[in-house]
């Protein structure tokens, strides 16, 4: 009689996983060797990677197609400004801000996690708009005028860039690790089961609501961190844009172009988006037309996304039955 075993790592992944750890260490050294431009660009890229990874986990693994993650981006950004204004060290404020976004996501989840599909999508969007309006109504937050993050000016430009970079790198590595561990844990298959059929998942003993909530809160933390990093990058925020739905459009673009429901896809998608942005940005309206055309082209030609086609799993999340 043949016996069987369940395997998770593949030959490729046994090599690639440690390499990725090395890559993170190499990236950590970038501010010592590279120009401020590279540092700044990589920081923007890391923010995009965080956002793409969060949206992918929500939609691709949890089946929660959110159009409202900008709510937590905005909260992360505004909380950073608010805490910094209270005299808290800006970089500490950014970490706290991500936690605040998570805390605020908890009551929100009570409402939106009741919703499914299209209702969930629009519901989260309206929640984000509501947060935007509440900020707009609050004059101490600058109201509709917006507000600037002043605390960072006390750092010399090069150091400010480097610190922001390291924090972005740390957040990115943390969020990717958290998502990886979560999806490889027993919660991973549970989330996918919920995505495919909630009732059937419940019938197999899956705690539907707590699992979804956990994912929702993790995504809120990640987006909050991205928001905090964004304000460190742009220094000025204004509610209509930091809470703007264009963030969701970007996430959608990155995740679908990269390959939804794969761990590596969103990272690839973020890099594609970043490159498209940088290469064509000087062409004004034509750049945007190009961006739209790229989106349509990907949807038509590689609907499963780049990594959906490659099908190599550097960081495998699945299970395989093999003969011993």
């Amino acid at each position, binding site marked *: 009689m043949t016996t069987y075993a369940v395997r998770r790592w593949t030959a490729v992944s046994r090599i690639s996983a440690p390499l990725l750890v090395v890559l993170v260490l190499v990236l950590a050294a970038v501010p010592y060797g590279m120009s401020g431009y590279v540092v700044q660009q990589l920081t923007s890229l890391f923010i995009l990677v965080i956002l793409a990874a969060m949206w992918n986990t929500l939609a691709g693994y949890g089946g929660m197609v959110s159009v409202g993650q900008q709510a937590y981006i905005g909260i992360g950004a505004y909380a950073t400004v608010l805490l910094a204004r209270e005299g808290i060290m800006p970089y500490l404020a950014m970490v706290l801000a991500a936690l605040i976004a998570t805390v605020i996501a908890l009551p929100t989840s009570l409402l939106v996690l009741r919703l499914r599909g299209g209702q969930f999508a629009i519901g989260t969007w309206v929640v984000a708009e509501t947060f935007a309006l509440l900020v707009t109504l609050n004059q101490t937050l600058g109201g509709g005028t917006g507000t600037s993050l002043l605390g960072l000016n006390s750092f010399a430009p090069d150091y400010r860039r480097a610190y922001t970079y390291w924090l972005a790198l740390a957040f990115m590595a943390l969020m990717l690790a958290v998502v990886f561990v979560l999806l490889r844990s027993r919660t991973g298959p549970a989330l996918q089961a919920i995505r495919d059929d909630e009732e059937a998942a419940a019938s197999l003993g899956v705690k539907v609501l707590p699992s979804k909530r956990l994912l929702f809160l993790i995504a809120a933390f990640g987006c909050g961190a991205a928001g905090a990093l964004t304000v460190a990058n742009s220094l000025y925020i204004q509610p209509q844009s930091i809470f703007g739905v264009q963030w969701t459009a970007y996430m959608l673009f990155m995740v679908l172009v990269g390959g939804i429901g794969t761990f590596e896809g969103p990272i690839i998608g973020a890099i594609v988006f970043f490159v498209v942005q940088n290469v064509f940005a000087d062409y004004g309206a034509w750049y945007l037309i190009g961006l739209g055309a790229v989106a349509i082209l990907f949807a038509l030609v590689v609907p499963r996304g780049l990594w959906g086609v490659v099908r190599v799993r550097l960081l495998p999340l*699945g299970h395989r039955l093999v003969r011993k």
Partner: protein
Amino acid sequence: MPEPLISSVKVSKRFGELAVLQDVDFAVGAGEAVGVVGPNGAGKTTLLSVLAGTLRPNEGTVRFQAEDVTRLRADRRCRKGIARAYQIPRPFDGMTVLENVLVGATHGAGLRGQAAYQRCIEVLGECALTEVANRRAESLGLLHRKRMELARALATGPSVLLLDEIGGGLTDAEAAELVATIRGLHGSGVAIVWIEHIVHVLVQVVQRLVCMNAGQIIADGAPSDVLQDASVIDAYLGRRVA
């Protein structure tokens, strides 16, 4: 008389105007195997859903292991030991067969790591799914889907197994395999409630047969007696079964 393992007490279920279950008293003892038959639309699946917790009854209570579980959600009931296979399979399309079963093992049975994997390997073997273990569930044919329903339910390590038409569409040999599997389960002490229209397969396993019609139980007893019952013949069988 000892309290049955799982029971419904005066359960009624309505969808709007339509009364689908009316005052149904149904009980299964530990280790018992009960077959449920009845014409289409009699309320069999609905009764199963009420027992499993995916439907709330309008009236009446559901008891399991001497405890009122009427208000417990399906996932709690599953973890307590009630497992259910759907009549119309509900696979997790985006996952492999192995992972489908794994969900039952890790969440329903609460197993972790190698123990969970071991349970999956066993169950896949029992249900003849080893060959397709690494296929995505969406690519399965109907009978594989049905087997996977059974496998997932088994993986949760139930004390009562609620089966809804898992035997339809099987060749004789396949049916015989299925009977052997379920008998084995029954032999290991799992109580079984099995809805099936293929009566000759059903009677090879169950000791008791219940016939439902129009939301009520119209016959309950030894299979041979129930199958001779005039009202059962009228409502369900249409002719005598040898």
